[in-house]
């Protein structure tokens, strides 16, 4: 019989069970194979010794390090274009979902109509403080009906400012003077319009209420099966990055959200929605406080992470958000149906200087 290969001899050292019986028996009595097996054993032992390491690792410390790296990596990914599924995920998130419905219905004054009728137009933005407990308690939009993506967002990089303007029909805001520490040319990103339809279902809402041991109040006539459409965008953003990839400054602009309805008395619907079981009272009361003209977009502000204050940008009331660790700040305002944001790893004063110095 022919001799087993060097590979078989090698495996005989580690996993004899993986070698055929016939080969094992052959090697045991073969004057050619036995020395080859010994040589293989010697090389394996030498390699094992050369490569061997004995080291103690601190898994807890290493895990902390990885957690920080993941967080940093997440921030570094901020300017990445949000894929469609993130929008879908956002729509499924309780916060966005409920605020979407509330934005649709909050104090809208228009009466029902057979055609799509604009019921909400963002003219200003107001912060709504959301606690961690609220977030947990807020129901999903699908708890009230069905959601359908009519037009998905399509975010992509744009060659330059002119291309971004052409793609969106919006003017790119020009930054007068970059804050200290921000240098270089920005990367431009553009996104198309996103459009979402929502159909209210009294049955679904009743199931949701029952699941938390509550009874659904009787819906006002006409609400069951009524449809709403929420549009936002297109938009563009100029992003300046630090050497490590963390966005140092973002200047973004988008056509502000508008909402349309296929027909329902909105004051009634709004009152009804805000009374639904499952909506935390702290959030509902803030929303009830908005003016009833259908022009205020609620901006969710996580209570533990951001603080909000007000300011003035070119005559428009603006909301300033600052992270509690003081690392990030942003300012957002609406002017003529267009929402503009300036944010970055900057102080609140710095983002305001940039915002007020923007040239349209």
């Amino acid at each position, binding site marked *: 019989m022919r001799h087993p290969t*060097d590979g078989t001899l*090698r495996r005989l050292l*580690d996993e004899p069970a993986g070698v055929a019986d016939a080969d094992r028996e052959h090697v045991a009595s073969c004057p050619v194979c036995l020395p080859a097996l010994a040589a293989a054993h010697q090389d394996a032992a030498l390699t094992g010794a050369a*490569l061997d*390491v004995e080291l103690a690792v601190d898994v807890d410390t290493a*895990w902390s390090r990885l957690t920080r790296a*993941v967080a940093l*990596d997440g921030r570094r990914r901020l300017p990445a274009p949000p*894929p469609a599924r993130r929008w879908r995920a956002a729509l499924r998130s309780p916060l966005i979902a409920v605020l979407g419905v509330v934005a649709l219905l909050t104090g809208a004054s228009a009466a029902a109509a057979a055609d799509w009728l604009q019921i909400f137009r963002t003219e200003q933005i107001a912060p709504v403080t959301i606690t961690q407990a609220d977030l947990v308690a807020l129901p999903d939009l699908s708890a009230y009906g069905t959601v359908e993506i009519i037009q998905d967002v399509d975010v992509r990089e744009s060659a330059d400012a002119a291309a971004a303007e052409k793609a969106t029909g919006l003017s790119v805001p020009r930054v007068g003077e970059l804050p200290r520490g921000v240098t270089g040319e920005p990367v431009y990103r553009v996104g198309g319009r996103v459009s979402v339809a929502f159909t209210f279902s009294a049955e679904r809402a009743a199931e949701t209420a029952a699941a938390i041991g509550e009874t659904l109040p009787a819906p006002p006539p006409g609400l069951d099966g009524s449809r709403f459409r929420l549009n936002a965008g297109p938009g563009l953003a100029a992003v300046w990055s630090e050497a490590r990839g963390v966005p140092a400054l973002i200047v973004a602009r988008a056509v502000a959200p508008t909402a349309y309805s296929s027909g329902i008395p909105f004051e009634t619907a709004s009152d009804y929605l805000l009374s639904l079981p499952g909506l935390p009272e702290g959030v509902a009361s803030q929303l009830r406080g908005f003016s009833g003209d259908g022009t205020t977009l609620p901006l969710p502000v996580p209570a533990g992470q951001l603080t909000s204050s007000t300011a003035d940008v070119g005559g428009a009331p603006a909301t300033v958000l600052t992270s509690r660790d003081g690392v990030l700040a942003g300012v957002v305002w609406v002017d003529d149906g267009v929402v503009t944001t300036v944010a970055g790893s900057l102080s609140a004063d710095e983002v305001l200087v940039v915002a007020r110095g923007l040239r349209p």
Partner: protein
Amino acid sequence: MSTPPGRGAVRVDLEQVFRSAYPRVVAVAARVLGSRDEAEDVAQEVFLTFGRSSVPAGEARGWLSVAAAHTALNHLRSGRRRASREEAAGGNDAVCADVAETVVTLDERRRVRAALARLPRKQAVALVLRHSGLSYAEVAAALDLSPGSVGTTVRRAESALRKELNRHASSD
């Protein structure tokens, strides 16, 4: 090897996999690099990638080991290693020499790394994985080899490594 990572999302089993596999991943990288500090850097890099991947949980062990071996070999070859670390590692990383007449000195360890860097990539990875305790079946799956050829690949690598070490030892 892995499917594209889910953007932004970190896999939910990351901590569980990390805690069970971290020592092994560091050990694989340390066999290539001979330094614990550098091996831990490599392990961080590997787990960061893994955290964004959708590698099935059942394949995590093999995937992480192969990724650690490749990443560590890349570090070796790209010259990212720093001499100071090599020196400093002398005190930290106990490199055991069990075989008679083989005293693995700092200098010898350097030769081992240089020899590893010169091996064909597949041989180097198979060698490191096998000496890190992966079975022939696991090495075969990880490197897309037949289990029968793992022995051949490892044997060739060991023979080449011995020749490299002897050549340098005799030329001193």
